[in-house]
C-alpha cells in the first residue's frame, strides 16, 4: 500500500513539475493572465470609481453583487453552526 501511494505521489509530482516548464515567468508582462482585462481595469478604475486599490474596486464595486453573496455565505455558515450546535437557546 505504501509503495502504491509513493508511486502515485511520484507520478503526480512528475506531471506537475513537467507542467511547470510551460508556466510563464514570474511577473512576465506577456503572460496570458495579464493580457486581456487587466490593463482595462488598471486604466479605468481611477476615473470610474476614484479609489486607489484596484482589488477593492473590483471586489466591492464591479463585482459587488458577487461579494454580497460571499458575505451571505459566511452568514449562512454562522447560522448553520448555531442551529446545529446551540442547545436550549434562541438564535
Amino acid at each position: 500500500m505504501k509503495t502504491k501511494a509513493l508511486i502515485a505521489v511520484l507520478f503526480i509530482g512528475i506531471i506537475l513539475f513537467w507542467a511547470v516548464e510551460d508556466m510563464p515567468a514570474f511577473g512576465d508582462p506577456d503572460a496570458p493572465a495579464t493580457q486581456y482585462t487587466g490593463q482595462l481595469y488598471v486604466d479605468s478604475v481611477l476615473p470610474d470609481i476614484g479609489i486607489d486599490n484596484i482589488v477593492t474596486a473590483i471586489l466591492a464595486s464591479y463585482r459587488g453583487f458577487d461579494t454580497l453573496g460571499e458575505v451571505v455565505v459566511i452568514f449562512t455558515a454562522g447560522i448553520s453552526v448555531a442551529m446545529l450546535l446551540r442547545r436550549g437557546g434562541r438564535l
Partner: protein
Amino acid sequence: MMENVVIRTVSRLAVPFIQIFALYVIVHGASGAGGGFQGGVVFAASFILMIIAFGMANVRRRIDNRGIMWLSVIGIATYAGIGFLALLMAGNFLEYAAIEAALGIPHLHGILIDLVEAGIGIAVMASMVSIIYDIAGNGEESS
C-alpha cells in the same frame, strides 16, 4: 487557565492593538492592502485570544449570542441597504455611481465602498465569533 498571570497580562496588552489593527485593515481597504473579510477575521482573532485568556463566560458577559447575531445581521443589512439605496436613487442594485450622481457629493463612491467594507467586516467578525461561541462553548446558553 484563569490563574495564569502571564497569559492574562500579555493578552490584556495585545487585544487592543489587534483590534486597532483590524479596524485599520477594514478602513484602509479602499486605498491599500486590506478589506472587510481580512479585517473581520483579525477582529475575530482578538475574541479568540480573549476567550483563551479570560474564559468563555467573561467574554460572553461583554457580548452575548444575541448581540453577536444582531451584529451579523447589521453587517449584511448595511451592505444590502446601500444596494437598495442605489435602487431608490434610480440606479441598478449596488450601483454606487447612481447615489453619487443623485446626491452630488464628490468622492462618495469611495466612501460608499468604505461603508460596504465596514459592513462586510462586521458581518464576518460576528459570524466568526458566533461559530467560536458555539464550538468552544459546549452548546450552553449563557448570556
